[in-house]
């Protein structure tokens, strides 16, 4: 199977295109690691195979279940935004394999630094999906304890978290632990200076960190060729560590490659860049309109490579799952959707005084003063109410 060529897209007509006319970089269609074809056929791939060689049918069903439930949760969140229950939602539709494969490769003691779209990874880490919705509903700016699942808060300013992951990994190495750290980011963030600096720092300190780039082809409206002239995974070479491109819609390949990269980190071999080549099937967020910048045919081409369908085909053709499994999962999926709906609708608005909470760990005189002023102001209305 060939990698989706960037040339297949509609030619861009902007003035800038000419200056970057050398846009077919050498090796524009590099090898990508694949273990499961879009048609659901299991293929061999050298050393990466060893990382999933002993995977059981039950584990395969587990990966399928993870992807289905994550997609269901994601669809529910999109609906909740449309119903006005959430202010915004960033859908992961199409990226389930990249997230579940890599997320399931992590160990409990590993630490994950996500962007704002890693709902599938959060699922793998055991974060209650309804916890992810607080910031999108506007009741908090985070909402979970990062240390309870070793899953850091969503980071909205893209790329910043790659440095936090690198620093955390430097700490892991100092502690002599064999945990690993994984930093998620996208093709858009790959242009950020912080990502470049995290590559530099992780390389010179040999930090046990995996940079997991989901290249979903679009940074809102900008295609990957607006971010790079070389395939993203090749950037690692310049920093002195390995980079590999994996079929981001192949959950098995993502699992295998991420395990390989995490094992390298654990063995003290330093950072790895994994580029999961995938596609953002939906809009950037619920505020976005992709019809303004990309063609339907492109999405259709990627739909044929759907991450969930290919694993279903494989499960069916290899007799690893029966009708009962799929029916049961369908029911579980609906129940999840229902629970998410109910929890979100019942999510209380925060207390007004939450504005002043946790601004500082050790307190701050000005915050105390303003809290008191705010309290007095609020109390003035209470008096009015009583007067009437």
């Amino acid at each position, binding site marked *: 199977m060939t990698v989706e060529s960037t040339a297949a897209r509609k030619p861009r007509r902007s003035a800038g295109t000419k200056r970057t006319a050398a846009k077919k970089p050498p090796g524009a269609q590099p090898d990508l690691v694949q273990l499961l074809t879009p048609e659901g056929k299991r293929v061999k791939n050298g050393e990466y195979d060893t990382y999933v060689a002993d995977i059981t049918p039950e584990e395969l069903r587990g990966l399928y279940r993870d992807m289905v439930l994550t997609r269901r949760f994601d669809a529910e969140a999109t609906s909740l935004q449309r119903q006005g229950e959430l202010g915004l939602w960033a859908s992961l539709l199409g990226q389930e394999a990249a997230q579940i494969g890599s997320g399931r490769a992590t160990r409990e003691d590993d630490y994950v630094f996500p962007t704002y779209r890693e709902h599938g990874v959060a699922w793998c880490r055991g974060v209650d999906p309804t916890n992810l919705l607080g910031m999108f509903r506007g009741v*908090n*700016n*985070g*909402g*979970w*304890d*990062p*240390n*309870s699942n070793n899953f*850091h*808060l969503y*980071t909205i*300013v893209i790329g*910043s978290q*790659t*440095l*936090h*992951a*690198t*620093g*955390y*990994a*430097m*700490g*892991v190495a*100092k*502690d002599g632990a064999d945990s690993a750290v994984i930093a998620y980011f996208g093709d858009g963030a790959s242009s950020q*200076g*912080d990502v470049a*600096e*995290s590559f*530099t*720092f992780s390389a*010179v300190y040999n930090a046990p960190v995996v940079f997991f780039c989901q290249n979903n082809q679009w940074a809102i409206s900008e295609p990957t060729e607006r971010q790079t002239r070389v395939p993203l995974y090749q950037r690692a070479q310049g920093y002195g560590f390995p980079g590999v491109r994996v079929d981001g819609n192949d959950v098995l390949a993502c699992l295998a490659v991420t395990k390989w990269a995490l094992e390298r980190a654990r063995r003290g071999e330093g950072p790895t860049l994994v580029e999961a080549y995938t596609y953002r099937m939906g809009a950037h967020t619920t505020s976005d309109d992709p019809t303004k910048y990309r063609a339907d045919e492109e999405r259709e081409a990627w739909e044929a490579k759907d991450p969930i369908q290919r694993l279903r085909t494989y499960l069916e053709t290899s007799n690893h799952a029966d009708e009962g499994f799929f029916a049961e999962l369908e029911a579980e999926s609906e129940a999840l959707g229902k629970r998410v709906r109910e929890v979100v609708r019942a999510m209380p608005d925060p207390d007004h005084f939450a504005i002043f*909470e*946790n*601004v*500082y*760990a*050790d307190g*701050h*005189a*000005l*915050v105390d003063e303003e809290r008191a002023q705010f309290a007095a102001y609020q109390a003035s209305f209470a008096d009015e109410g009583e007067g009437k």
Partner: protein
Amino acid sequence: MTAEKMALAKAINESLRTALDADPKVLIMGEDVGKLGGVFRVTDGLQKDFGEDRVIDTPLAESGIVGTAIGLALRGYRPVVEIQFDGFVFPAYDQIVTQLAKMHARALGKIKLPVVIRIPYGGGIGAVEHHSESPEALFAHVAGLKVVSPSNASDAYWMMQQAIQSDDPVIFFEPKRRYWDKSEVNREAIPGPLHKARVVREGSDLTLAAYGPMVKVCQEVAAAAQEEGKSLEVVDLRSMSPIDFDSVQASVEKTRRLVVVHEAPVFLGTGAEIAARITERCFYHLEAPVLRVGGYHAPYPPARLEEEYLPGLDRVLDTVDRSLAY
């Protein structure tokens, strides 16, 4: 043990050494902080004694330094980061403002960010551009950060101890032109609170409020004014976030006049906030509007002009006279 006389830079060095000794989680990070001991030698000898793993020479990337310090703090470390010069902090400004300052709140208090960012600041050393700036207001404006600046060796020692012990991010502005000024440091003293101002000279006619490098200038101003029969009180603010308005208020209620002095541009500077708050708190006590002396709304000038730019003895005295003339 009696007090020991030492330079301000040496006091910070000793304080870092004490912290490294006391807590294995304390790390020093920055450009040239290791073998070289920092361009001002503030970290001199620390890498030799505590090793490369704890006194870390970093790549030349300020955002990377602060961003990785955040990650180390999340892992349980207490990084003390050096930004080589005031004007070099801006590549890290995003990490400081967007990430470091807000992360504790975003996590609803579940995680702490005990990161100290040391920044040698201010002018008066004849440096090239970007080496003499005073950007403290840009940090004090940001909720989630604490901002302090010592004016003498003893405060430098103790405030650094307290900054490292703080579970909040602290921006520690070091008055670089006072690095070599010596004063007594008593390492067995019991320091006052980190964010409390201190009256360093008592007076009755007017209050001068300053911090960092300008405290010494204000003390000289007060001495000169004394000869003219004017009694000036000098308050060393020590902390720009939070600001100890209570101490300033107490002083102004006594003297009824306030002049705020800093190197940073006057416009929207720390003095603007102090003027507004003290006017509100002391409206019926004031005999004159709160006046400010500081830098101009212009890029920090080339070294041969900095004497004109920096508030010196004469310019502060002139402002004192203006206040007293009301």
